[in-house]
């Protein structure tokens, strides 16, 4: 039988606030264990939580960016369960009345644009971290992460394949980075998800039995875990078996998902309203302020780059990958003044090749050794035919190394285009005189060999001859019979 997969995601995003959600402990990543812990986040008796205002601002930004309905009076609730990394014995979350509902995330995957509808976005606190390498069969608990603010984004089951699910996670990362509310760093756990997946015969409307794969913390894992799980469920169903509703973990070393049977027993979180935190009231002015703060999202920016700046899909996609890279590109274009489509494309390509090859992370464009204004100066020299495209790359490399301007480098190293056409003519004639065999080949019809002559002239002039002039001179001279 032919099946289709139905996938929904529960995405956790750590908000990039300085302090935890309910106390003033630092959220800085990488501190020694238990450095950032206080009576509130370690659950000491009598300690009272106070909500971090910035958390609300960030969460509102995400909710509005996704077009959610924001609840004006949302509630905090206690989700009760025991685990050593949860010092209070409950997680403060939101249950019946979450901050935001509805909305969608727009995803572009393999050239196709689709919407992943959202069920809700709510606030909650993160748990601590448990490692299982303690001496003598023990686990070690670090509470630095306990109380770090999270938003949980719950999607509707709108996805049907593993790659699209991974792309949805990439899109969420792009959005939270564009919004400046999280670094979206999966390796550090700032972005992770649980994936619910079930199979149903193609054409059937009712959903099959689902499993939940917990704690996927890389894009690759999201894709691989789902691919494995879909194949596992298909094999089960094809063999006449049934899928058991359960929680599973992905083991990347073996490339399989495994049942977490120990956690299956009695999932009863006994949610109840958090008595220590009154109703979270969102005022109209606050919503308006959050709306005013919304930047352009990556997909909208991409479309604008295509529509207004005439970039190709690929160029635009790459340049909007990180906000800082898109900002860099736009700053170059702005500094170029009224650049035409060709110049804009040249700027885009320069950034994609020369800049990106010199930074590890596209976000580092913000602090690149060659500022956008400086790159624009270089590109203006190319536009004025004072520097060849090829030598522009050489000049850029030198700008990167010694932070001088394009003009200074071109002057100091004699890299300007040869303006003396007599000198170019002489060079062309010298090259032709030195290559009688190639000249004969050209004249017998192998006109492609002109590239050889161009190369020779460029080599002799160290790339400084204006290519157009060289081409034109060569054609003239080769057409004649002298």
């Amino acid at each position: 039988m032919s099946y289709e997969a139905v996938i929904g995601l529960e995405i956790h995003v750590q908000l990039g606030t300085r302090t935890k959600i309910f106390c003033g402990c630092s959220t800085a990543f990488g501190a020694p264990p238990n450095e950032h812990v206080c009576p509130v986040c370690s659950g000491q008796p009598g300690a009272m939580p106070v909500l971090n205002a910035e958390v609300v601002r960030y969460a509102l930004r995400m909710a509005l960016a996704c077009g959610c309905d924001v609840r004006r009076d949302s509630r905090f609730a206690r989700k009760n369960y025991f685990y050593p990394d949860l010092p209070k014995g409950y997680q403060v979350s939101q249950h019946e009345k979450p901050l935001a509902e509805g909305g969608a995330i727009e995803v572009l995957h393999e050239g196709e644009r689709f919407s992943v509808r959202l069920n809700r976005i709510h606030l909650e606190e993160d748990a601590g971290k448990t490692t299982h390498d303690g001496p003598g069969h023990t686990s070690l608990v670090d509470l630095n992460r306990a109380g770090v603010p999270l938003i949980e984004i719950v999607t509707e089951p709108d996805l049907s394949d593993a790659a699209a699910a991974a792309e949805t996670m990439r899109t969420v990362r792009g959005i939270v980075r564009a919004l400046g509310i999280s670094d979206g760093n999966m390796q550090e756990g700032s972005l992770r998800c649980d994936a619910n997946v079930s199979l149903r015969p193609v054409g059937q409307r009712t959903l099959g039995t689902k499993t939940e794969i917990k704690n996927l913390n890389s894009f690759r894992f999201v894709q691989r875990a789902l691919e494995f799980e879909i194949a596992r469920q298909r094999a089960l169903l094809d063999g006449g078996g049934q899928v058991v509703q359960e929680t599973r973990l992905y083991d990347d070393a073996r490339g399989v998902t495994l049942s977490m049977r120990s956690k299956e027993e009695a999932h009863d979180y006994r949610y109840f309203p958090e008595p220590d935190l009154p109703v979270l009231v969102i005022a109209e002015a606050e919503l308006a302020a959050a709306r005013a703060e919304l930047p352009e999202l990556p997909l909208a920016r991409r479309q604008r780059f295509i529509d207004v700046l005439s970039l190709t899909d690929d160029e635009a996609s790459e340049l909007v990958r990180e906000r800082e890279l898109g900002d860099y590109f736009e700053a170059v274009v702005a500094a170029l003044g009224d650049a035409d489509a060709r110049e804009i494309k040249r700027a885009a390509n320069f950034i994609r090749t020369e800049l990106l090859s010199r930074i590890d992370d596209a976000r580092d464009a913000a602090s690149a050794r060659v500022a956008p204004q400086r790159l624009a100066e270089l590109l203006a020299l190319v536009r004025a035919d004072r520097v060849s495209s090829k030598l522009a790359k050489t000049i850029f490399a030198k700008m990167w190394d010694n932070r001088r301007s394009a003009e200074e480098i071109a002057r100091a190293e004699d890299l300007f285009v040869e303006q003396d056409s007599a000198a170019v003519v002489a060079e062309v004639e010298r090259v032709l005189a030195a290559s009688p065999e190639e000249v004969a080949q050209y004249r017998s019809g192998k006109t492609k060999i002109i590239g050889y002559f161009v190369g020779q002239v460029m080599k002799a002039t160290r790339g400084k001859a204006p290519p157009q002039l060289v081409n034109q001179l060569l054609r003239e001279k080769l057409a004649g019979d002298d």
Partner: protein
Amino acid sequence: MHNNKHVDIQAVAQLAQLELTEQQARDFGAQLERVLEAFAALDAVNVEGVEPTTHPVPLPCPRRADEVTPSMARERLLDAAPARDEASFVVPRVISG
């Protein structure tokens, strides 16, 4: 087993991660049953159309500025735990393997 009307004492014990002997289950089950019976008096109140009160005082949730305040001295924190190593709380291993 136990004919409690309101409470499955073993389920409650499991959620609380408590192991009860048969005797304890009988004793606590009966006691808890009496507690719940007392509260059952509330069932008589007609609350139709009444919004559940989650907080007695209708105050909006106060918020604080996102400014770092000092955390606890780690030594003090860890010393309060039954078991610790240099920097972490030590607990019985919580996963198999």
